[in-house]
């Protein structure tokens, strides 16, 4: 087998429970991510998407199965970088200072850090805001800094946990395009968690659909649209429409299954929200 086709992330029958095993978050999860691939994890709330990302990052250990990242058990560090739903910037540091913080963790010398930080801010269009403090920036700008910080460590895998979910629609659209451009230029693997099916289909090459309670892989579909997608918006293609209809169909099936289960359990709590 060609070495470049070796998966950069590999999950085999991974399971995870919380609260001393009372809550089963993930069960029997298996999938691979190839180097440079853009994979989305999609599913309704409660399917363990964020838990899965934290497992891949090595922040928490798996209870069952095996996770390999770059051929070894995952350890948090500069090969993996995370972008969170909120930017999670340190409010007492300037924008550049926040990026220098992770450059320092990566082991970059003190003299190099400011220059690298500014270059990265340039890459996300925030060069002029290097000395600003996070609270002086808008939500979209803060999220750009979060993205620049993740890119700063030159990760082989970029983990993104609903990074655009808290932004307004216009900012979200702009940032999606920028993400695609950065990904095309840098070629790192991306694992992108979202509950937005359109977003998953628009951005990724592969969509891993998860089912909730406990989180399991429901389906894995390849998404093949002409690249680069920031130039050829695939949303106008009939194939895009088919893909999203198919995925929505899966979600509706899940909700129906879930509804039956919840009825049996006598719980009606979050059904309305799910459908």
């Amino acid at each position, binding site marked *: 087998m060609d070495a470049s086709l070796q998966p950069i992330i590999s999950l085999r029958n991974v399971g995870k429970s919380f609260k001393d095993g009372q809550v089963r978050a993930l069960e029997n999860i298996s999938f691979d991510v190839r180097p440079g691939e853009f994979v989305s994890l999609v599913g309704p709330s409660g399917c363990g998407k964020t838990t899965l990302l934290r497992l891949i*990052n090595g*922040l928490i250990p798996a209870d069952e199965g095996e996770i390999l990242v770059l051929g070894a058990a995952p*350890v*948090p*560090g*500069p090969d*993996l*970088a*995370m972008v*969170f739903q*909120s930017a*999670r910037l*340190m*409010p*007492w540091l300037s924008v550049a200072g926040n990026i220098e*913080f*992770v450059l320092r*963790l*990566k082991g970059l010398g003190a003299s190099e850090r400011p220059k690298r930080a500014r270059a990265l801010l340039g890459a996300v269009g925030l060069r002029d805001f290097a000395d600003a*403090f*996070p*609270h*002086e920036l808008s939500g979209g700008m803060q999220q750009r800094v979060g993205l620049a*910080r993740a890119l700063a*460590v030159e990760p082989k895998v970029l*983990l993104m946990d609903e990074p655009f979910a808290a932004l307004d629609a216009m900012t979200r659209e702009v940032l999606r395009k920028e993400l695609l451009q950065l990904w095309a230029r840098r070629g790192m693997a991306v694992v992108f968690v979202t509950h937005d099916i359109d977003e998953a289909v628009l951005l990724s090459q592969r969509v891993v659909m998860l089912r909730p309670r406990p989180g399991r892989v429901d389906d894995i579909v390849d998404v093949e649209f002409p690249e680069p997608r920031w130039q050829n918006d695939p949303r106008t293609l009939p194939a895009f429409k088919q893909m999203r209809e198919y995925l929505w169909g899966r979600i509706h099936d899940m909700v129906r299954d879930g509804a039956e289960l919840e009825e049996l359990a006598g719980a009606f709590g979050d059904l309305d929200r799910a459908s």
Partner: protein
Amino acid sequence: MSIQPAVEPSTRQGQLPPARISGNIVARRAQKRRALEGSAIFGAQVLIGFGLLAGMYALNAIGGNLLMPSPTSVARQSFIMWTDGTMLAGLGQSLTVIVLGFLLSASTGIVLGVLLGGFRVLGRILDPFVNAMNSTPGAAFIPLIIVWFGLYTEAKVVVVWNAAFFPILINTTAGIANANKELVEMAQAFGAKRSTLFWRVMVPDALPSILSGLRIGAAISTVGTVIAELTMAQSGLGGLLAAAGNRFQMDRYFAVVIVLMALGTAITALLRYAERRLGRWRVSQANGR
């Protein structure tokens, strides 16, 4: 619904230029209102000040010098005490105790607070003892402190330390124990080691909480100093207070009270300023959200 969009643009266009002009007027009006409000508040404060002075004169006229000294004699005594050096010497003695006691309680409180906040188990072990000590009125320990440390400056510093240490300790511990979990997770995700996590994320995140502990501690240091000076060897401003009170020299007594008021206000203002400078990101964040 269907008519509105057709009408709206024309009305909007028609209103735009006057809206801009009236915007200017609105801004000027708001400025004027703010200025007016400011002078009204200041005027009211001056009025209350005069009212208090008038009240003092009235009480003095009715009840005599013992009940309430006349402001004129308080001013005269203040002048005398400042010119003959009594007040300056007292202030110096008091400030020595306040500053030494505060520095001692700040350094020990922050160091121990960082340890207690950082090592959860240690924090949980010592929690009941810290709470018990903190709930005991500081004055309860004065007899013990007299037996252990005597009656002079070092004993007074211990009294101040005993009073100011716990609020600083508790605020520091709470600030670190409640450090922003999202930021901690972020730093962990990027591979931060425990020590980096602690010194570069949790401690800076706790800084505003530490600073409010210091502010409370400084205010309590002033109180503790006066109590120590009243109950132990009389010295400083507290000593002057006691001496004047014991001789029923109420004008002298009031002259000292005024200095204590000014001292307390100045210390609090200074620390509030420091708090705002060092924790300005948190202040503006709170205002922004």
